[in-house]
């Protein structure tokens, strides 16, 4: 028992390194699906829900955005002040126009963000998100990427993650905790 406790204490600094930065300490600059520039400071005093993905992916990404749309509908107007964003890990193919087409299938509160590769990399680092390109036969490629949904309080503090395979019933209460 004592051994386990000591182990945890020793690992605490390492653990905090994997938590996303508060929104206010992030430094990326991206473009939304309407072509508007977006910076972390634009999200001040707003609850935030962020998911990383890419439009080429027909399984994980639309499934997550469908789930998010259902949660937003369940929350109704309570979630109107929330920033809900898909950040593309595939900016090469995901232009603002492609993202506009894509997010139009989901809840209108969801925005798409893309930008130069180095700004996407900066955002991923700030959120502690991993992504990598996987080349397929015939010159195509797909992206492996962190699949969780990140939640932040209105003051920018990281709140929690909704994991991809987590029981979906826990999602709405988790989001609600960031709305007040």
């Amino acid at each position, binding site marked *: 028992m004592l051994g386990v406790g000591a182990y945890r204490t020793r690992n605490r600094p390492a653990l905090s390194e994997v938590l996303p930065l508060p929104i206010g300490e992030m430094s990326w600059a991206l473009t939304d699906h309407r072509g508007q520039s977006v910076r972390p400071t634009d999200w001040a005093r707003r609850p935030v829900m962020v998911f990383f993905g890419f*439009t*080429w992916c*027909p*399984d994980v990404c639309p499934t997550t955005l469908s789930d998010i749309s259902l949660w937003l509908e369940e929350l109704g107007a309570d979630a109107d002040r929330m920033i809900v964003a898909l950040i593309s890990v595939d900016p090469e193919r995901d232009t603002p126009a492609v993202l506009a087409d894509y997010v139009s299938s*989901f809840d209108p509160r969801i925005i798409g963000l893309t930008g130069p590769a180095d700004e996407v990399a900066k955002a991923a680092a700030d959120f502690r998100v991993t992504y990598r390109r996987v080349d397929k036969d015939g010159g195509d490629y797909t992206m492996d*990427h962190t*699949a969780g949904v990140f939640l932040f309080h209105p003051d920018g503090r990281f709140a929690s993650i909704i994991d991809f395979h987590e029981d979906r019933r826990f999602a709405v209460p988790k989001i609600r905790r960031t709305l007040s």
Partner: protein
Amino acid sequence: MKHFLLAASLIVSAPAAMACETVTIGDLTVEHAWSKATIGAGRPGVFYVGITNAGSADDALIGIATPAAGMPMLHETVVQDGIASMPHAMSIPVPAGQSVQLSPGGYHGMLMGLTTALKEGDSFPVTLIFEKAGEVTMNVDVLSLRAEGPDCADAGQ
């Protein structure tokens, strides 16, 4: 070009009716085949279906074929350490007496090289190739990109 036209004509537009087709081959029942609308033809489509093996011998889905896509493959979405990837699945086991779902976040058919964009309300044929039972062809309903599954009266999911 001729090939393209032929393939495109196999995609049928049927907005109102949902097929929710059920087919059987040997001891296997295959039902609720569906797909999602795509943005253009440059992005892959997806294929989901439910398979029940009422027999006493294990089988496996080893491939799919469709005129709707040049390179259909079987994939499995895997989330490890929070990171999602979708490796190629050589075969999807369909054990005796069990049901297997190709469903969002798990096994799926990946339709690469679409001959035309998939639109909500369309349907197209897919041939499933089983290791033992052989091949069976069924119609796949294209739902919206947002859909989480087909709304069949007997949908068991």
